[in-house]
């Protein structure tokens, strides 16, 4: 597999940061453990990316420790309390977006129920994320 990692170093740091954190969140969510070492991270990222990330993996992990996302203890790393809280918040937000009612699911009090024109306006407004269904726009 050709890696999806960006070519510029700044974006690659962000890309691998996300990839590493996703592995740790996944392991945590599945109850498979909270402590990882470089070897395990390599296993999860896959052999195809080794050439690209192998030399920099320690650096990426160190950056995550430095920014407070990971806690490092010798060869072992774990998500920090802050990263866990941030992750839960981000996941909750993402989930909220998924379960937010669509236009036809607005309740009877929603102003978009009054006319087709209002419904179109509601859809546009919600597309711009400035209208919660069921609440009037001020």
């Amino acid at each position: 597999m050709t890696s999806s990692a960006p070519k510029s170093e700044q974006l690659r740091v962000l890309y691998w940061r996300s990839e590493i954190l996703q592995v740790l969140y996944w392991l945590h969510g599945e109850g498979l453990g909270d402590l990882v070492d470089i070897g395990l991270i390599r296993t999860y990222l896959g052999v195809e990316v080794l050439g690209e990330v192998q030399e920099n993996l320690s650096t990426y992990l160190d950056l995550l420790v430095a920014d407070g996302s990971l806690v490092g203890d010798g060869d072992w790393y774990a998500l920090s309390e802050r990263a866990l809280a941030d992750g839960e918040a981000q996941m909750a937000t993402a989930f909220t977006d998924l379960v937010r009612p669509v236009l036809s699911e607005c309740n009877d009090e929603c102003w978009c129920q009054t006319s087709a024109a209002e419904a179109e306006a509601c859809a546009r407004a919600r597309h711009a994320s400035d209208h919660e269904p069921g609440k009037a726009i001020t």
Partner: protein
Amino acid sequence: MSTMSGLPGDTNGTLPRHYLKPCLLLLLAEGPSHGYELLEHVRRMGIKGAEPGGLYRYLRAMEKEEMVSSWWEPSQAGPARRTYVLTEHGRKGLNESVQSLRDVREILVTLLDRYDTLSTRAGASRP
């Protein structure tokens, strides 16, 4: 799929090389699932050596190929888990994989039938 050329030690030479793919597609066709749950099921389907790292990479690769999609599902009782579902593209992939397995089955049945015929003949000719 080039990212997962089979999981070392999981087939003992008895299962097709990419057997994990139809297994995962079938499991997700049966309904949305999570990583650990999928791992348990594929082990029960014969891939005894399946390990979480391989499964994780396989799911990521299948997501990049748009055969599955996933999202984080928050839980009241524990941490958020990644939920995986089959896409329409994945359903087509499942159909193709199953057809391929059916073709392999035909070949194997032909071989086994000839073997059985030979065995029967050999048995009959023995004094």
